[in-house]
């Protein structure tokens, strides 16, 4: 940027202030330095560390070990088998429920109840579910009382235990996120469609859905990334050496049982790459849809 002649006499301080840099701007520095030092640096360090294996076999040894040992590479599939259905189910159920709840004036009680499992966290939900879903728990008992099943369901220490606990902690998150997007759409748009005789399904399909797609894509990504990082409930409610041996378990074992931090970093990087891939796919798909204002314009 070249300043014109009259300003040539201005000091460096004033020039910087013109571009928005002064004492106040510097207040952002401590936080930036903190994030660089405690978040970005460890990430780069971990990336480099993963290429410096403590075992022999060249710089890719950790990655070669991961992708040649079925006990390790199968964790990706095991995690996807949990995360993808949980995410899809959460998003598909969250949309109709959010569409309904937005019409209710007193949402506060429901949203407060739903924020409980998010706040309490997976460890507490896992402990509660061990009792609740166990063979003598209230869930099986109620179903038996209603004569829906004749013997208790086996819902803990297997795939379904982890699946259900993920739903309990992840669905409220997806729902509240979707609700904030749905309430951001101008209700006038839907009213206009109704005035022109659009049925409920048509209003949803041709008015609400196109406006919701960008928000839903974000909700899908955030939900998926959370579900993919499942850890405590996979250990406590699942079969951590069997079908719910998820990728974070493999990473934690490499770090704290084998003390091989290079391998643990490699697994963490692989975990990050898989998450990134799914997020990129979702964002590419989203770009195929309409993007525009969610509020009604005049005209």
């Amino acid at each position, binding site marked *: 940027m070249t300043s014109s002649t009259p300003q040539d006499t201005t000091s460096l301080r004033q020039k910087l202030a013109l*571009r*928005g*840099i002064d004492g*106040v701007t510097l207040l*952002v520095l401590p*936080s*930036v330095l903190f*994030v*660089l030092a*405690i*978040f*970005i640096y*460890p*990430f780069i360090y*971990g990336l480099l560390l993963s290429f410096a294996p403590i075992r022999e076999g060249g710089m890719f040894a950790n990655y070669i070990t991961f992708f040649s040992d079925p006990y390790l590479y199968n964790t990706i599939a095991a995690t996807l088998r949990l995360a993808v259905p949980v995410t899809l189910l959460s998003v598909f*159920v969250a949309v109709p*429920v959010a569409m*309904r709840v937005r019409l209710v004036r007193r949402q506060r009680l429901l*949203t407060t*109840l*739903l*924020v*409980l499992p*998010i706040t*309490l966290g997976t*460890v*507490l939900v896992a*402990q*509660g*579910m061990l*009792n*609740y879903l166990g063979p003598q728990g*209230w*869930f099986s008992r109620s179903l038996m009382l209603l004569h829906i099943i004749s013997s208790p369901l086996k819902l803990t220490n297997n795939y379904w235990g982890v699946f259900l606990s993920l739903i*309990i902690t992840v669905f*409220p*998150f997806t729902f*509240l*996120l979707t609700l*904030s*997007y749905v*309430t*951001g759409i101008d209700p006038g748009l839907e009213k206009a469609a109704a005035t022109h005789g659009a049925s*409920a399904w048509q209003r949803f399909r041709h008015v609400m859905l196109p406006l919701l797609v960008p928000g839903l894509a974000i909700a899908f990504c*955030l939900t998926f990334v959370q579900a*993919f*990082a499942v*850890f405590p409930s996979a*250990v*406590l409610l699942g079969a951590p050496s069997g079908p719910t041996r998820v990728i974070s378990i493999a*990473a*934690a074992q490499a*770090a704290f049982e084998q003390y091989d*931090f290079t391998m*643990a970093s490699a*697994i*963490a990087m692989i*975990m*990050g790459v898989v*998450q990134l891939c799914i997020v990129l796919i979702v964002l590419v798909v989203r770009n195929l849809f309409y993007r525009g204002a969610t509020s009604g314009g005049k005209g």
Partner: protein
Amino acid sequence: MIRDTTIGAKLWITAVWAITIFFVLNVLAIIATVIVSSLGTRWLGTWLPNAFTLNWYASAWQEFQLGPVLFVTFQIAFTVVALSGLLGVTAAYAMARRDFPGKKLVMFLFLLPLLVPPITFGIPLATVLYQFNVGGTFWGVVLANLVPTVPFVILVMIPFIEQIDPKVEAAARVFGAGTFKLFVHVLMPMLIPGILASLLLVLVRTVAMFELTFLTAGPTSQTLVVSLYYAVFASGVRAVQSIDAMAVIYMVSTLVWLLVALRFVNPTQIVARGNQSSNAH
């Protein structure tokens, strides 16, 4: 409001509500099982325990050394709250008031730690912390917990600060207030509700943050969630009711702060961070 009166629409509405109620009932039942179990003497094969007692709380307190654990938990949580408030609010002020080159990049930098799940960045972070001999100590846990909370405070505070009229600050400057005086006497009183809300949420998040604390804590820096995890992990060693009593104590120590925080924020804001707050009044 548009009313749908066809039978199909009514069935659909009923189905949607049925699913919602079913879900909420299950959530409540899960929480209730923990509470009932912690209060029961023996609970085998019946709807409710045979008799009720408070003894499990005393034994849990002893067995799991909850006194020191709770002390460490809140020491860590309040340190995290103070530091993330200090770093976050000042950075949010600069982000809200100035347009500087590279602002988008800085914003992206603050968003990243909230988007990447803790377990993914926690492992390399723990490696680095152990390298510098902070891993397993009080400060290691604090540093790890600050990673998501500093950006969280920034993102919640930016819209709060933006809605304050800059003319108020200009007026204070005209009357000779320095930056420090301006902060303490003009900005702080107006920002208190926002700061309080975001810091309470940080408190809740830190007490409930399992992954990062699990990865970086040593024997003397464990928080309550991590102790609870180890207790559930080794269940069979201790009585279930005792673990449940500990779980209830954990639940109370988180929910108290959540209830206070909910007086200042809408539940949707807890999930849809800062940038959504224009929708949630």
